[in-house]
């Protein structure tokens, strides 16, 4: 029997990493919760014919996609304290700063995915809806958006998989998520096992993400 006994040190490691995973998941879900709707708004603004709307949004998307997320994390965390004028200085909690950075960064990527999806819907769909008397809002939410969601699932799944791995970046702000928990343990025990185990955790999470998207694609496969 002793050959099958799990060593206590491994149980301890998994428990430790599991706490880190919970924080990673928290970042993951909060980011999706806010960035998916914000991305849609951003896409609509990006497609606006008003220059004063679409120019600033294009600049925002350029900055978010054109600079490292790691720098954005640092910038958002330090900005309110070091760069705000005297009297307006404040400290953002590390976790809040991380969520803000992730949300604004991912919203920019999602916006471009939404835009691609929306622009791929034939104009005839809008015209048929208009002639039937649907309002613009009804047309968007009943006719256009459902078709957009089906079309953008593959690129969105790419982003979501990247997000799982990107959560490791918040360790730069000292938030103890999966990666930081593993690194600390590796340093303490002079062993690479915790890092390797963390890798397996990320892989497992993305296996679930992949399965979820496969299911969603199947569910929306009832039409072409």
């Amino acid at each position, binding site marked *: 029997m002793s050959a099958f006994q799990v060593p206590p040190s491994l149980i301890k490691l998994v428990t430790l990493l599991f706490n880190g995973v919970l924080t990673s998941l928290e970042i993951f879900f909060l980011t999706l919760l806010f960035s998916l709707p914000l991305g849609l708004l951003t896409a609509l603004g990006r497609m606006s014919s008003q220059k004063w709307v679409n120019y600033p949004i294009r600049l925002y998307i350029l900055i978010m996609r054109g600079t490292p997320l790691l720098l954005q994390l640092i910038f958002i965390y330090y900005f309110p304290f070091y760069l705000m004028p005297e009297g307006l200085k404040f400290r953002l909690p590390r976790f809040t700063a991380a969520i803000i950075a992730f949300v604004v960064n991912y919203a920019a990527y999602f916006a471009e995915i939404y835009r691609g999806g929306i622009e791929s819907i*034939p104009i*005839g*769909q809008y*015209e*048929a*809806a*208009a*002639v*039937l*008397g*649907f309002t613009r809002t*009804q047309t968007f939410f*009943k*006719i256009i958006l*459902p*078709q957009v969601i*089906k079309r953008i699932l593959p690129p969105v799944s790419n982003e979501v998989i990247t997000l799982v791995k990107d959560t490791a970046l918040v360790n730069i702000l000292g938030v103890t998520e999966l990666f930081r928990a593993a690194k600390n343990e590796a340093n303490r025990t002079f062993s690479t096992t915790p890092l390797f185990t963390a890798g397996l955790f990320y892989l497992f999470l993305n296996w679930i993400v992949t399965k979820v998207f496969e299911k969603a694609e199947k569910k929306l496969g*009832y*039409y*072409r």
Partner: protein
Amino acid sequence: MQILKVENLYKSFAGSGEVVTDVSFEINEGEVIAVIGPSGSGKSTLLRCLTLLERIDHGTIKVAGETMVETTPQGRVVYASEEQLRKIRLRLGMVFQNFNLFPHFSVMRNITEAPIHVRGLSPAEAGEEAEKLLAKIGLTDKADAYPYQLSGGQSQRVAIARALAMKPDILFFDEPTSALDPELTGEVLKVIRQLAAERMTMLVVTHEMAFARDVADRVIFMDKGQVVEEGTAKQIFGDPENERTRNFLRNFSANHKLG
């Protein structure tokens, strides 16, 4: 009763010059009008102006006595308020060349969605009406099918049912058989003939001359954005007055059989 009155309608697009030039005509209740003419003669653009898919540059359009758009003596084009336009739009039905069915809805839901959310019918009422329409177009067994599972002819029949479900006062057809394989045009034309027999008011832009001759009460021949000639089907096809009409019909019957 007069369903549609068009006066001095002009429409041009930036870069392509005038597409519709000084077009005037009217349609009375129960009439079937065929609009014929060469490609690029402005037929489709005219239809798109009448269904509010394009904004006109000049002229007046009245639907069942209500002004959709008019032009002031100073030349300013004034459309009715959004509220009024919404009401007017409900009187107009449109069948597109490419069907434009909603791919994510079943046939049934394609037909019931607008009656429920625009006309305010209960799903049960809308479903009942849709079933009658499906019986009429001979597609009762396709109620649960999705558009990708239909042939072109079936798709167009569903598109007609979808338009009819809104109970329009007038139904516009923009080349309803042009996207179909030749062997599928018959089933669509049959449905339109049936509607004509029921005195549905219709304006059909078409290249099907035999159909126009047999079904239309009046025929409008358009060329280069203008109404060249307007008359009964018998007169236009039997004894056209205008040289351009004669040429068009002669070329047409040389290329197609006027069966």
